[in-house]
């Protein structure tokens, strides 16, 4: 649109419902240390009032019209979504456009919400030993006080200090049509959405936004080992994370090969890692590999194992290293590559069977510097990956100087 808003329509007439998602190209990685949690705190405040929709009414109005709504904050993006009967699309587009610039943030509403967010942090992080370990691991991998190391929900000390001014500034700086993507999926047409978008989002003026910056390097102390021994832990976990290129940062040419690598190395119960560690070696109860390239900055390639009861962390580490070496020395077979590609492509077909998946996929891609064409070309690019490219990607990413090894164990004597 002329004011810079990108809009995508994904028609599907399966059920008489529509989903609207507005994704802002801002997340916790755009915060500064000392004010961590601002993006997420602001997401909460977006449900408070504007001049037209009083505090707390947004969700009530959606609900009394038979709809559901929610929001999420990530490292690179913040999204707001509603699903509602198709004929109520105008209502949710009007309200979402209204709060793009109309939120009034006051002390009266910040005070109880701060407690809510601290409870959210307790529930998701402080009560959960593995989440506390993950926080410490990201600090080593990306470097303390750096983007992706600062937790999305924020550090407790920062959450306690964030002010009306901090949140208002963050809001003005990042919430603008030219910094957002509108996605409407479901029982509607491109023409209908265009009309409504022009009516409600069209009049909102674009604003100068700052370019988003992400470091091209990881933490200063790699390789690193992080161990969390916690009295609350019963089941141990071993994992290793390597700094990895994303679609946007680093050696981006590896981004597609790494997705196929993650799938064939540890993406299912027929993967190399599962067969070697769980089925044959009985070293682990489960084993996995994962890689998410949709990130503005660097991302990570993760491998993890849940050790079998009598096996040590050293046993697990040795078994994983052996499997990695086998792949690096012997390469991958064309048929296992094709199998992994098939699984990924089938996943894309099933994604089109779900109303929620399309907006998620486009929203993630467009908020991390990608385009609609990137989403549409994904199957072809995955299908084009060769065994040699997978081996080259593994050689590039599995470097000792880019890794953090993480261990979650029961505290001494607590077992």
């Amino acid at each position, binding site marked *: 649109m002329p004011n810079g808003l990108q809009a995508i329509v994904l028609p599907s*007439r399966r059920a008489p419902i529509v989903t609207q998602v507005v994704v802002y190209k801002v997340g916790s990685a755009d915060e500064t240390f000392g004010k961590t949690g601002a993006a997420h705190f602001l997401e909460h405040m977006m449900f408070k009032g504007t001049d037209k929709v009083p505090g707390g009414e947004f969700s009530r109005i959606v609900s009394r019209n*038979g709809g559901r709504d929610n929001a999420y904050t990530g490292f690179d993006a913040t999204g707001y979504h509603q699903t509602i009967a198709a004929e109520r699309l105008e209502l949710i587009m009007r309200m979402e456009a209204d709060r793009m610039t109309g939120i009034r943030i006051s002390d009266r509403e910040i005070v109880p919400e701060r407690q809510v967010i601290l409870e959210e942090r*307790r529930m998701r992080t402080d009560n959960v030993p593995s989440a506390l370990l993950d926080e410490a691991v990201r600090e080593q991998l990306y470097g303390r006080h750096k983007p992706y190391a600062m937790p999305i929900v924020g550090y407790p000390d920062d959450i306690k200090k964030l002010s009306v001014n901090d949140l208002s500034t963050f809001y003005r700086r990042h919430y603008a049509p030219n910094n957002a993507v509108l996605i409407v999926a479901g029982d509607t047409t491109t023409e209908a959405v265009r009309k409504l978008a022009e009516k409600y989002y069209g009049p909102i003026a674009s604003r100068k936004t700052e370019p988003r910056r992400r470091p091209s390097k990881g933490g200063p102390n790699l390789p690193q080992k992080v161990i969390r021994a916690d009295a609350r832990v019963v089941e141990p976990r071993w994992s290793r994370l390597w700094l990895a290129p994303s679609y946007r940062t680093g050696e981006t040419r590896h981004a597609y090969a790494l997705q196929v690598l993650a799938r064939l190395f540890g993406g299912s*119960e*027929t993967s190399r890692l599962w067969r070697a560690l769980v089925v044959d070696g009985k070293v682990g109860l489960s084993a996995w590999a994962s890689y998410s390239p949709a990130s503005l900055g660097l991302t990570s390639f993760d491998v993890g194992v849940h050790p079998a009861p009598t096996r040590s962390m050293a046993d697990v580490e040795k078994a994983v290293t052996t499997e990695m070496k086998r792949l690096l020395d012997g390469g991958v077979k064309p048929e296992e590559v094709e199998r992994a590609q098939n699984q990924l492509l089938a996943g894309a*077909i099933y994604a089109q069977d779900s109303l929620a998946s399309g907006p998620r996929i486009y929203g993630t891609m467009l908020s991390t510097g990608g385009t609609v064409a990137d989403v549409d070309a994904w199957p072809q690019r995955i299908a084009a990956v060769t065994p040699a490219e997978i081996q080259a990607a593994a050689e590039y990413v599995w470097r000792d100087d880019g890794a953090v090894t993480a261990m979650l164990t029961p505290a001494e004597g607590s077992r």
Partner: protein
Amino acid sequence: MKRLFAALLAGLALLSLPAAAGAIEIKQVTTPLGIKAWLVEDKSTPVVALSFSFVGGTASDPAGLSGATDLMANLLTDGAGPLNAQAFRQRQEDAAASIGFNASLDRVSGSLRVLSANRDEGFELLRLAMVEPRFDVAMVDQRRAQTIASLNQAAQRPASVAGRTLMATLFAGHPYAADPEGTREDLAKATPDLLKKRAAAVLLRNGLTVAAVGDISEAELARQIDRAFGSLPTGTPPALPPQWVPPTKPRTVVVERSVPQSAALMALPGIPRDDPDWYAALVMNHVLGGGGQQSRLFNEVREKRGLAYSVSSGLRTYKRAALLIISTGSANERVAEALRVIKASMARLRTEGITEQELSDAKTYLAGALALSLDSSGSIANLLHSMQVDGLSPDHLTRRGALIAAVKLEDVQKMARRLLRDDALTTVVVGKPVGVTSEP
């Protein structure tokens, strides 16, 4: 392999065309072998989804063998007929099919999702899983170890501990009290033979309920259902447990855990799904703590006081019991206040009922909310399946609106007085709560 690969790429290109229009039209299918199923034919994506279940869940675990039904259900897809676990999984992956089974208190449920072009393979693998499961010793050992680890992990999570403690407390002496995943001791006794017997006792054609959605015709579905389920035996499904007798005294159970936030659950006897006043209960629950961010509990506990991030209530129904459960999590120092606020909200609803505005808001939400779950073939199949389990007719989706519209203020008030009783309230708190102690 190559063919599937090409087909997948071609499929993706075709899918960008607009899908055909179509509301939810439920067809009733009877197969040549006499199996009944519900079908919503939908050609908008090249997918078939099946949702089905058998009568007899974890509550029918033999005495001293808790977890057997759950373990059996997990192992059905771990090797069948000539295929070991790896080969069975590989065949699923090559057909882009996924088959899964799980056990709840009353039923063993299953699902199949497959590209319609690969439906022969998908339904054949489903048949193998149910008719010729192997229960190879190595797989039994592997899944048992994973189950025990999963029990250990649950014991680390305050919310899971609270849920387990609540069920054990409410249903003490009743089969619903046992952990569906079993205990370490009982799981040790599960042998391949025993699991085979469990499968034979539960996987019966006459205990079966089936629903299908997707790119498949009635005649083709009938053929495929007979292929998958036709050779299952008939017999007597496991008996249901006795009717639950709800507690008549309030009770509080505190489980100590070193965590900063306490997880809390409050439970009351609920209302069975076939109760004539079901919709009044649905409205009442919506106003109290259902739905999303509009409920009284959300407003009182979270918005006004910031006592919790998550607070909600829900109706749960089983074959032999029904519950109303409220859940929240609050810092150890503040959880007592959160519980007080929740009780005060319940008391106010009981004495004053709800307002006209709340009634009409709840009705419009409940009328619209069902359509929101029609998100994918799988979710529509799940809805069709649960409608059958609940004893509803296929035209329920059109009649439901009128049933909700008929609920009156006084019906909700009556329901609040019936359900929201302090004298039947069971509270479980897991953490280091300040000012909350166990009471008998």
